[in-house]
């Protein structure tokens, strides 16, 4: 059972006390293989008979397209961009995540409020303001953090699509050069993630290993969470096939 606990005040329009599903969050900086792990986890959970709903940043019907458009211009101040992301987050919480949990699904979130908080804080937005803002966020059942060093991250960037404007913090860092900017930005970001990991009791997994090694560690964490669900008929096996089915 997912108890309906929020970081701050319970937001208006949210009813009920307990939901039969589970909310699992995977957090990590860019290019850690996070999305691959979410996909693997989804496949495994479905194989085990759980209905899965997956969601991630900017995937809301309401604000997703607007954020993409806004970021193309590279002109947004961090407060506006954050409020845009917060709108997207809330829309998904209210219209994807909560209905999924209510229907007894396993909801997988590819990043949650922590990525948003870390990115904003390194850009100078006060952490108190960010935490107040996301007071309406539901406390997940499990937050797994895929931890990696910048040195291990670099070969993955070079080997794939290269350096990205936002992922290199070029919107605010006064550093010359994409490479230098990337290194500095990711260092700041990782530092912030590690602070959040301690404060919010993340399960930390070393992401420098192979995909299979990381997944094995991730699966162990999820198995522990599921151990107490065996007797919960609303979840396992699938009791209902809700409209929000992810398939």
């Amino acid at each position: 059972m997912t108890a309906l606990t929020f970081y701050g005040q319970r937001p208006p329009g949210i009813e009920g006390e307990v939901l039969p599903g589970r909310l699992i969050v995977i957090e990590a900086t860019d290019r850690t293989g996070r999305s691959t792990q979410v996909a693997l986890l989804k496949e495994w959970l479905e194989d085990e008979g759980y209905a899965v709903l997956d969601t991630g940043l900017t995937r809301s019907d309401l604000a997703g397209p607007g954020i993409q458009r806004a970021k193309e211009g590279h002109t947004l101040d961090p407060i506006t961009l954050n409020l845009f992301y917060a709108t997207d987050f809330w829309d998904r919480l209210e219209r994807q995540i909560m209905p999924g949990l209510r229907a007894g699904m396993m909801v997988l979130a590819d990043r949650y409020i922590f990525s948003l908080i870390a990115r904003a804080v390194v850009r100078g937005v006060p952490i108190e303001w960010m935490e107040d803002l996301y007071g309406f966020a539901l406390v997940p059942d499990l937050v797994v953090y895929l931890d990696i060093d910048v040195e291990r991250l670099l070969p993955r960037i070079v080997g794939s699509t290269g350096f990205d404007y936002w992922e290199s913090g070029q919107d605010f860092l006064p550093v010359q050069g994409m490479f230098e900017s990337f290194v500095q930005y990711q260092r700041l970001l990782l530092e912030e993630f590690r602070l959040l990991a301690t404060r919010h009791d993340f399960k930390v997994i070393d992401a420098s290993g192979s995909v299979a090694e990381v997944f094995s560690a991730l699966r162990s964490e999820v198995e522990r969470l599921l151990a107490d669900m065996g007797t919960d008929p609303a979840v396992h096996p699938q009791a209902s096939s809700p409209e929000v089915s992810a398939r």
Partner: protein
Amino acid sequence: MASLREDPHLPGRLFIVEGIDGSGKTTQLDLLHKWLVSQGYLVVFTEWNSSPIVKRTTRRGKNKKLLSPVSFSLIHAADFANRTHAQILPALKAGAVVLADRYVFTAFARDAVRGVDPTWLRRLYSFAVKPTAAFYFDVPLTEALQRLAGGRLRLKYYEAGMDLRLSSDPEESFRLFQGLIRAEYDRLVDEFGLVRVDASQSLVQQQHEMRGIVKRHLAGVTRNDHGRIQDALRQAGLTGRYVRDGAGAWA
């Protein structure tokens, strides 16, 4: 205004108007705008829900009825944040007089009616600049409704507060919604020291009152002393066939 940002070093001035629909606040702000321009002040005007980057998303939410109390609140805060950083703050730093048609108090009043926590709202908007003076146009509900009925009254879903399910009849819903907002404004007047203007008075009386208060805050604000285009034309004995009056240089 305990929760808003005070910055005594900003050389500009910020005047804002608030009130329920039909209170006449936009008319009064427009009159103030014209007067300030005629006095040579650099005036920048901004209105609620008008950020070029955000308003498409707001419109999408409204048209598709996607907005809940919290997303309604957040997307309007995003719009306001964008105007604060791209429009209001730069203008105040440049020494302009900024006029805002609706400000954070609109969010405080409307969102509170929709059940959003007031403390959360005040923290959310803590980046907002504290206005030099904030005018609240206080009008009895029946009078505001009469004025609207005389002009535009094609009620949209969120404008009428239909999402609150106060009534299935749009006009009745609008009436109840505006009444609740008005009660919230009453609280905000005390909390934030808004200047209450009796909006049942004649238009000219209200404008007189408003200018009297604004004048007191204009000492030291930069005025354009390059003279107006009309003056230049007159002095040179020209008719001004190729220059448009005022707007271009002053808007």
